């Protein structure tokens, strides 16, 4: 018989809810995807790709050597005229196929993305994979409408595109790069990031399933040296890079004097600005989404939190109590909010920068949570009493660490937000529309989220001002970097 005691003694927490990897069919070892097939590296190596949450091997992956890079560029060159000669509609149909196949294999792709990169399955399932499919779907539809997207100008493809993507959104960034390049009639050689090559290789399988002509896309996992070789290949007509500002500058410099169109999507130290008239609870959610999404491994992460002084205290307290509810742990658990740090190297960098913040006198608070023994982890961290001159206020941490600065007036908020060499993104939180639009116009940033943060869409251009890069990905503007105006 039920009693009042049974009623009030119920304690409730979520049981582990791991996504089962049983459905995933990974090979033990992947070759380089060149000219339509997986091939052994000629002068490369084979390297295990590590699950950062367990330090176990996800799969062994071939890394390309310089000869492999050359062979891939040659195959892209050979395939390009026929690919460009296809009608836009037919090219588009291949991309539509790819979009559909990504949707069909969505669950598998999401699981592997979380295994290889450490991001929560909730994000790979709800953001990375669906957006990757959406990008192919969006650009598929552009393939036969290119001149409309270019202000009516007559256009032609550039030729062979060399594309390098980072480890934070491996599949999604591959889609951002490949979809517009292919739609415009270019062929591509894509280098996934050193630590996260596996979903790009699953994408290669999908390209095979889609019967994409051999050579139109080659996928070459490798380390930085492969990327460096790729962008220096003499027969490349276009370079697109997403990654750190330091490497971006190297690439821009390496291409000096060659007249090769370049797209750079680089780092950031984006300001998330909370005004005193903001809806504070939604702002706190936006702050959390802005900095803890994907463990803060996001180029546009809202890592500089600028709060108007009059509400700084309540916002920080609300944020801190909200942070305590973040669930950190197994990336494959469907209830995990913050997963593993992508690599030991990145963990070391975060650790070093956080230590510098403490040394420089900022006040650190890190969420107390149980972290697994193995793998790479960093507890969500909040710094207050941060001065603009501190390293944690100026340098990109690329981890789950937010630095809080305050401002007194709108003008000061704008000035502080713009006071950085970067210019990728910004957030504005205010209930007053006229203020939101005025501040948005004054911010030197390629993306401004007003009363929201970290939203992406294939129809909306994305890219930076200043040292966050140039060129745009997404939407109509995303066609421009892959087309030449024919005169």
């Amino acid at each position: 018989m039920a009693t009042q005691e049974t009623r009030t003694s119920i304690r409730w927490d979520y049981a582990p809810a791991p996504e089962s990897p049983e459905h995933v069919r990974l090979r033990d070892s992947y070759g380089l995807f060149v000219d339509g097939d997986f091939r052994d590296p000629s002068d490369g190596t084979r390297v295990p790709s590590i699950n950062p949450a367990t330090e176990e091997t996800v799969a062994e992956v071939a890394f390309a050597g310089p000869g492999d890079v050359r062979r891939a560029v040659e195959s892209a060159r050979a395939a390009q005229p026929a690919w460009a000669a296809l009608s836009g509609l037919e090219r588009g149909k291949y991309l539509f196929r790819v979009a559909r196949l990504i949707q069909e294999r969505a669950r598998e792709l999401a699981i592997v993305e979380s295994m290889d990169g450490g991001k929560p399955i909730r994000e790979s399932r709800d953001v990375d994979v669906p957006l990757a499919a959406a990008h192919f779907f969006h650009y598929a539809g552009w393939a036969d409408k290119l001149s409309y997207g270019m202000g009516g100008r007559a256009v032609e493809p550039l030729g062979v595109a060399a594309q390098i993507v980072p480890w934070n959104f491996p599949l999604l960034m591959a889609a951002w790069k490949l979809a517009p390049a292919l739609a415009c009639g270019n062929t591509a050689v894509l280098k996934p990031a050193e630590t996260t090559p596996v979903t790009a290789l699953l994408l290669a399988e999908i390209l095979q399933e889609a019967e994409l002509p051999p050579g139109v896309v080659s996928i070459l996992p490798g380390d930085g040296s492969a990327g460096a070789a790729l962008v220096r290949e003499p027969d490349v007509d276009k370079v697109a890079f997403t990654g750190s500002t330091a490497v971006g500058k190297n690439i821009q410099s390496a291409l000096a004097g060659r007249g090769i169109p370049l797209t750079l999507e680089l780092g950031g130290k984006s300001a998330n600005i909370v005004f005193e008239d903001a809806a504070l609870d939604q702002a706190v959610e936006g702050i959390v989404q802005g900095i803890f999404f994907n463990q803060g491994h996001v180029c546009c992460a809202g890592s500089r939190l600028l709060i108007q002084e009059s509400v700084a205290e309540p916002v920080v307290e609300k944020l801190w109590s909200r942070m305590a509810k973040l669930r950190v742990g197994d990336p494959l658990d469907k209830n995990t909010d913050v997963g593993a740090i992508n690599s030991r190297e990145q963990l070391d960098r975060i650790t070093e920068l956080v230590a510098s913040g403490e040394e420089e006198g900022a006040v650190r608070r890190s969420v107390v949570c149980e972290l697994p023994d193995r793998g790479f982890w960093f507890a969500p961290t909040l710094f207050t009493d941060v001065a603009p001159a501190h390293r944690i206020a100026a340098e990109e941490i690329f981890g789950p660490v937010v630095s809080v600065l305050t401002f007194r007036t709108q003008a000061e908020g704008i000035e502080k937000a713009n006071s950085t060499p970067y210019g990728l993104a910004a957030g504005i939180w205010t209930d007053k529309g006229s203020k939101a639009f005025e501040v948005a116009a004054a911010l030197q940033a390629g993306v401004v989220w007003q009363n929201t943060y970290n939203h992406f869409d294939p129809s909306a251009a994305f890219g930076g001002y200043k040292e966050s890069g140039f060129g745009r990905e997404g939407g109509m503007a995303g066609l421009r970097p892959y087309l030449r105006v024919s005169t």
Partner: protein
Amino acid sequence: MSERLPVRKTYKLFIGGAFVRSESGRYDRAGAFNIPRGSRKDVRDAVAAARKAGGPWAARTAYNRGQILYRFAEALESRAADIGAPSEDVEASVDVLVHYAGWTDKLQPVLGGINPVAAPFLSFSVPEPTGAVGVIAPDAPPLLGLVAELAPALAAGNTVVAVLSEAEPLPGLDLGEVMGIADVPAGVVNLLSGRRAELAPVLAGHHALNAIVDASGDAELGAELDKLAAESVTRVRHSGAAASYADATADPLGRLEAVTELKTAWHPVGA
């Protein structure tokens, strides 16, 4: 009766709306005139002036900037005889200014728009000026080669620091005087004469410069500028010297895009 002695013009750099001597005190001869040979510090001052003028210039309405560019064309036409350049060079320059005057309020609808995002947000992308733009003018034609790069940069809302034709700097310096009567606000255009090989690298390496348009046609210099620009991710466009109105307007949008950023804003819809 003695013959009247003509009053000769003293040519000066045009920085921040003022006609100034090079801080270096150096000069070169051009025909009967002494031409200031701009220095590293003159570049610095010019970039500072361009940065200072940038915000207010960009904040003007597109209509107002269009009117100022058109006024610039009117002023150039009326002063055609005073410019030390062939009349076809001046006339083409006037027409180029008229063409780009009309672009100021067309750029946004052509490059920008509402993004049909799959979520309850108003998302829109708008072109914005990239900021302070360096222009390396070709040696010839001395006026049109400059105006073909200047006009799109201004139309897109940028401010400019230009290194003038080294071979024929006088038309470019004369243009500064035209601007003085054309309502172009101080600092929006800054003109430097001198040695291109000395000035252009300083300009490209200046971290406060946002974009550089190199019309010098000098491949070696171009590669050097590329390398310097890479230090601060400065945007670079290499452009052949515009020899005619048709050249200068063959792909106007391309010229405008090179000095334009695209900003995407998101705003939730739902109270």
